């Protein structure tokens, strides 16, 4: 496995893909540092220094943007609008008949849905950037610190400047979306997950290192927990239910073909980290909205509710909602991506069958029977896995240094495993080709 990493760089096709992905990641990080026009870099820095100790209030959203949000850089919104948009579009496929029809259309319908996702991303980006810029006129509300030390970060807050800022942030979000799609298309792994990985990877080492200040014991506990979670994730990802498939024997001329047995692999957790990413980003939305409201002296009731229950990752109510969302998204995502009817059709056309099950609708029924029962375990497992770090971090009291550590560890490991697996399979594919020619 490890030697294959070295080999990965020696096969030109794979090397290009890896280098391309790394270059996109570098661009993504670069954009997270360039300040938005109209924002004074020096003033933001001064505000951040003044605010140390009070902690970042926008926690999760900031984490997902890799620290860009609180620097008010051009990539401040990060990949979040894109994720939100794709969640919404996927949800709509169940609700709106037109979307459902598009999904059934196959290739062309898929293209249409991608288009809708992009439009929605831009709309969301416009909304979020306007909120962010409006809130940034009173910077102490989002950066923390007192209004005295941090009164303004915009030297010029006339309407044209603000419009330029909003347009810049929206355009930059469009650019991030494009970068993500480029990675999916020409690089390695899923672009969206890989950009989140980049953002999370930028802030996690510091957070882990900061725990050391509370003593080496706690630091060790967090590291051991990370290792345990990694092993657990690998274990679940590699467990699969194999459904035997028998190919019918056919005589063509004097030779017989087929008659072999294979299996359909059904992974216990087919949805991978997607439910976690969806659940965490969905839960961070109300927080984001509430945060921009929170600066007012007399906030509305719902802002108070969100601030008490959802601003931290260790409140029981937050955990409960989080668990329910993860379980829901697991089933939802599996039902969207895996169609038993289609698989049954394919089997029938290939002249193969599951021993003991009739072809056609009984096969589809059997597949969804197995799938539902396996996914039940997969969903519960992922939810428990997501809760362990939350609880453990709260127990060792490392929460203020490592907010939402659970989600970040799981995203790191999940996306990491997915990418490693893809590199591995690409490598095998390549070697087989080399073998045959």
């Amino acid at each position, binding site marked *: *496995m*490890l030697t294959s*990493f070295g080999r990965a760089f020696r096969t030109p096709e794979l090397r290009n893909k890896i280098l391309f992905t*790394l270059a996109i*990641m*570098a661009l993504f*990080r*670069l954009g*997270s*540092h*360039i*300040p938005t026009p109209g924002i004074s*870099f*020096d003033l933001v*820095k001064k505000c951040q220094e003044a605010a140390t100790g009070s902690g970042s209030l926008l926690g999760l959203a900031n984490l997902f943007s890799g620290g860009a949000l609180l620097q008010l850089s051009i990539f401040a919104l990060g990949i979040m609008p894109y994720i939100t948009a794709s969640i919404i579009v996927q949800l709509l496929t169940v609700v709106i008949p037109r979307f459902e029809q598009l999904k059934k259309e196959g290739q062309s319908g898929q293209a249409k849905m991608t288009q809708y996702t992009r439009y929605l991303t831009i709309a969301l980006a416009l909304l979020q950037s306007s909120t962010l810029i409006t809130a940034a006129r009173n910077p102490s509300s989002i950066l923390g610190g007192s209004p005295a030390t941090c009164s303004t970060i915009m030297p010029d807050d006339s309407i044209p400047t603000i419009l330029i800022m909003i347009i810049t942030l929206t355009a930059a979000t469009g650019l991030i979306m494009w970068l993500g799609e480029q990675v999916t298309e020409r690089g390695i792994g899923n672009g969206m997950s890989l950009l989140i*990985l*980049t953002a999370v*990877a*930028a802030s*996690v*080492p510091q957070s882990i290192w900061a725990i050391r200040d509370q003593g080496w014991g706690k630091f060790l506990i967090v590291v051991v927990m990370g*290792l345990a979670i*990694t*092993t657990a994730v*690998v*274990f679940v990802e*590699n*467990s*699969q*239910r*194999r*459904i*035997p498939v028998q190919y019918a024997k056919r005589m063509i001329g004097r030779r017989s073909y087929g008659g072999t047995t294979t299996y359909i692999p059904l992974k*216990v957790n087919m949805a991978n980290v997607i439910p976690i990413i969806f659940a965490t980003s969905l839960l961070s939305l109300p927080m984001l909205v509430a945060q921009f409201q929170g600066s007012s002296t007399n906030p509305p009731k719902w802002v108070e509710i969100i601030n008490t229950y959802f601003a931290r990752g260790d409140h029981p109510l937050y955990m409960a909602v989080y668990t329910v969302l993860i379980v829901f998204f697991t089933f939802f995502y599996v039902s969207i991506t895996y169609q038993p009817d289609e698989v049954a059709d394919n089997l029938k056309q290939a002249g193969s069958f*599951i*021993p*003991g*099950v*009739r072809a056609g609708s*009984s096969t589809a*029924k*059997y597949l969804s*029977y*197995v799938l539902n*029962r*396996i996914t*039940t*375990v997969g969903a519960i497992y992922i939810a428990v896995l997501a809760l362990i770090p939350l609880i453990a971090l709260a127990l060792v009291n490392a929460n203020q240094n490592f907010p939402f550590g659970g989600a970040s560890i799981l995203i*790191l*490991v999940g996306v*990491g*495993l997915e*990418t*490693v697996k893809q590199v*591995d399979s690409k490598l095998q594919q390549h070697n087989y080709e080399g073998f045959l020619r």
Partner: protein
Amino acid sequence: MADNDAATSTAVAGERERRGFFGRILLFVRQVIDEMRKVVYPTRDELTSFTIAVLVFLAVIMAYVNGLDWMFTRAVSWVFGSG
């Protein structure tokens, strides 16, 4: 292929009718356990090699991203900063 009892999936509907609410949940749990027994789990070797690969990958990515960050922070404050 004893592992593919088609009878279970066809008999499910009939059996479900006869049971109450909790009986149905119990049946479902039993079926889940039944299916989980047939799951193929990774071997110890697979588990360790994949875990190590993921850890190495993450270490490399974190080093890369943080190296970039260090560079970009310097570059940006050199370009945009005043002091």
